[in-house]
């Protein structure tokens, strides 16, 4: 996967982001990470909400790199995979992990209930928070004008 291929296949578009756009995404991530901690929610809902925070963190990194993933079938998978292009080696383990989570989240949202275990919901909250932290660190180091 390269940006050239993604652009040619219309899976990505060139995009110039702004501090305002990123701050809106930060607010969305903060909301989702907070909601994913709510003990009263089902493990499914906590899992899906933390997944959404991770996806938005991926989209923040992609936006800072100058792209936006086109909204069409499979765009979550493309967003997660594209973080490898933006963040490099440190993102590989996260991309594999969130790809596993993406499939589980699809089952949760569209097919079955009681899919995520409490163990999995707690783990994705920890990993989504760490991943978001890594994205913020990367923005600070590479795009200081867009930092938090």
């Amino acid at each position, binding site marked *: 996967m390269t940006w050239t291929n993604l652009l040619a296949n219309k899976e990505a578009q060139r995009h110039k982001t702004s501090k305002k756009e990123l701050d809106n995404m930060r607010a969305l991530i903060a909301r989702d990470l907070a909601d994913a901690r709510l003990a009263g929610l089902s493990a499914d809902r906590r899992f899906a909400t933390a997944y959404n925070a991770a996806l938005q963190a991926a989209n923040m990194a992609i936006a800072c790199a100058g792209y936006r993933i086109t909204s069409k079938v499979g765009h979550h998978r493309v967003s997660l995979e594209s973080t490898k292009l933006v963040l490099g080696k440190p993102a*590989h383990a996260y991309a*594999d*992990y969130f790809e*596993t989570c993406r499939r589980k989240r699809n089952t949760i949202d569209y097919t079955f209930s009681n899919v995520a275990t*409490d163990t*999995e919901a707690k783990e*994705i909250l920890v990993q989504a928070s760490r991943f978001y932290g890594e994205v913020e660190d990367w923005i600070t180091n590479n795009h200081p004008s867009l930092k938090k």
Partner: protein
Amino acid sequence: MLTALFPQVRQGVLAATLGQPDKWWYLSELAGRLGTSPSSLQRELSSLVASGILVHRREGTRAYFKAETQSPVFRDLQQLFEKTAGLAPILEQILEPFGNKIQCAFIYGSVARSREQAMSDVDVMVIGKAGLMNLSPALRKAEGRLGREVNVTVYSPEEFEERVKSHDHFLTAVLRGRKQFVKGGQSDLDELVGK
């Protein structure tokens, strides 16, 4: 799918030998793996050796068997079994490095019941401290070798015990159904729920 092609015992022999092609299987070891007696394997083994699919050697009174990797059909047969009955050996291999972080793991659902279609997803339950984050890279590799998706459900030992004791609907159904263990066995599962 394999049931339409091979009788049950031959499937088991081929899945074990083609799944670990460098391993020499002692007759009773192979029988133990397949849950049958050594005498019931003799005819199948002789036939597979005669056709050049397995090779045989003797050490004293012991007979050993392994896949004939020089056979012109070896790779084709291995790929067929990797994509169907070879699931368990591949999953055993990928979970093995996690050691004690996984107390028990098994395949369940249509694959475990031998009712899967060629492209059925593989459902795996993992009980232990190895999270999805650690398991995911290994799962991607397994999916590449198997040509199908592997869906894993992870429980900590504490959550597993609690859910079983509260008669969780999903877990009760899974535990009643057929399972193919890839780490541990029924006794480990019983121990986890305090039986």
